[in-house]
């Protein structure tokens, strides 16, 4: 198992930063049953983050990292945006290369890892904002679905280009006023979850990150289905509290209120995906 790479040389233990030593000693490796309930008692794979205080993106990333069934063999591909500020703090193999090309980079990585390690499950997960996934990167997102790449794509939908200071995105709801849409957005929010279904994803979910346990289940199912079948897509509401004028402790309430409307929990599974999920359930992994 590749988690041996986190073993610190005994000779260097006194000079290696303590969080790196903790990774070896207190993180959960080699245990696919790990999950969000481990968060308070184990070492997290995210050291710190430089997002705004209370940004729901940070909660989402922590839940996702805690839920990965196979972190020691998981590669995460990112894009430009607020999330890219978090990436260098993640103690897994991560990539940031350009804005919008995340599903292309992930396709190249996944195909080569299958070629180089045919007998090993190496999970590739894409994690990017709504601008990256649906506007500038839509072509590459959908084309990776068409090609049936075995990757899990997670979109952090905050309904805005947050990192550049609050401009309208394709996922902004119609009528909402943001920069570059001074008269309000003129067209509907792009139904990305539906596009994912139509483009060949085997598992699709839409939810807010108000419930950590639900996030865990969805992440695990999506990753297992991607490993066995093909593309899976998760659409998360992670509101940009800064751009919609909320306080740092308001994120959870905002998500809970959207749980009842445009981010009401929605899930889609192909019959094949159902079989995969049933198999993993039978093994006690879900």
């Amino acid at each position, binding site marked *: 198992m590749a988690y041996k790479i*986190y073993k610190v040389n005994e000779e260097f233990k006194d000079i290696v930063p303590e969080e790196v030593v903790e990774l070896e000693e207190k993180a959960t490796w080699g245990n696919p049953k790990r999950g969000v309930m481990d968060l308070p008692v184990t070492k997290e794979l995210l050291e710190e983050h*430089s997002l705004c205080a209370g940004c729901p993106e940070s909660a989402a990333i922590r839940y996702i990292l805690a839920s990965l069934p196979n972190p020691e063999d998981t*590669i995460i591909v990112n894009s430009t945006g607020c999330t890219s500020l978090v990436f260098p*703090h993640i103690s897994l193999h991560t990539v940031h290369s350009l804005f919008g090309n995340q599903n292309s980079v992930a396709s*190249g990585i996944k195909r*080569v*890892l299958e070629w180089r390690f045919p007998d090993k499950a190496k999970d590739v997960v894409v994690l990017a904002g709504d601008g990256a996934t649906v506007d500038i990167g839509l072509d590459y997102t959908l084309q990776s679905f068409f090609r049936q790449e075995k990757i899990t794509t997670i979109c952090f939908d905050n309904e805005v280009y947050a990192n550049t200071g609050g401009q309208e995105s394709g996922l902004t709801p119609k009528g909402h006023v943001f920069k570059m849409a001074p008269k309000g957005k003129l067209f509907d929010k792009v139904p990305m979850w539906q596009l994912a279904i139509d483009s060949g994803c085997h598992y699709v979910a839409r939810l807010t990150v108000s419930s950590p346990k639900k996030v865990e289940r969805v992440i695990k199912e999506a990753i297992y289905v991607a490993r066995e079948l093909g593309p899976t897509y998760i659409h998360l509401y992670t509101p940009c509290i800064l751009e919609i004028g909320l306080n740092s402790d308001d994120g959870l309430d905002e998500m809970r209120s959207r749980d009842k409307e445009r981010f009401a929990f929605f899930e889609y599974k192909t019959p094949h995906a159902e079989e995969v999920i049933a198999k993993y359930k039978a093994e006690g992994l879900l």
Partner: protein
Amino acid sequence: MRMIENKVEKNWAGQRIVSPDYLLFEAPREKHFMTGSEAVKEAVKRASVDASVSYPITPQSEAAHLIGELWAEGYVGVYFRGENEFGVMSEVAGAAMAGARVITTTSGPGTLRAFENFPMWSGTRIPVQLVLMARGVNSPLSIQPDNLEVDFLLDTGCMIWYAENVQELFDMILAGFAVAEQPDVHVPVITAVDGFFVSHTREAIYLPPDDIALPPYAPYKSPMPVIDAEIPPGRFLRDPFVMKSNYISYATHASWQWEVRSAIERSRPYAKHYLKGLTEEFGEKDSEVVFIACGTAASQAKEAVRMLEETEGIKSKVVKLKTIRPFPYEEILEATKNAKYIFIPEFNVVGWLEREVRKALYKKSDAEIIGTPRVAGGMTMPKEIIVREVLEYIK
């Protein structure tokens, strides 16, 4: 040839693994007759290539699909058609990050569509090889040979080599991997040829046997961590410099860009070895009339050298550049010691090679530097035109 337990070592395609030196310089060669596109296939066949992603655009489509045939035949590990060149160049980037030897091809508008990826490749320190079959960039649309796009690529942090003909293209592709993958180099290499003039022209070519191949890529010699979760991650930082507005961040970004350029500089000794010099001369050594050129312009200049000698009794020579990045400053300085007139024939409207040569020789040479003839948009460069230009200047 590497041996293990007295057994010949083979790659996944069953080819005997030999050293780059053996493949390039020692293996017996047989004469064939083929186009530049077919020569790409023959080179890739002997290069133990792990992955390639393709996209059609004239004049490189044939080379790109022939690599696909090699995949179907079991010589290439991973191959597919990408969605467009931006996607393709990101897909090959991902493939290289995951530890693969990667090759792809493009031309003209494809290069521009992909552009954001090239500095990303070099900054990521992946030794991707791009075979560039230069084609016009213009509106209205042109598919003809024209190498303006090479100008755009000069400062992307990629090595840029220029092959004159089908034979050189074959050898350069193999040498390209050998040089780009050196741990102290490890930057992308763009192997350029003129579209049609090389891609579509059938020429004599000498090929080593096809049951031998380069040693497979050794990903763990990379100066950057391979993204395969088999070695510790390299970007786990307490205080990352990404997008930070502080002096350390600025300094890191500045020094990394310098480092990429330094890596290209460090490629010089390897390129000299595997290309047998960064430049090549043709004609009378001490000539006062010197042509500096690359690619097809060098071929045409050689014809002009013959014609000048035969019809006018004027001695001249060609200094052919095989590498543009790194730029062969010393070689050019040495080769133009006796020059009075330096002509730079080019297949583009801007004269990027003239600009490069002027910069290299500024305050170091008294020769007159003349950026002519210059043709573009698919026009050819007959030797008569070159000779006429020379006579106009020197008489």
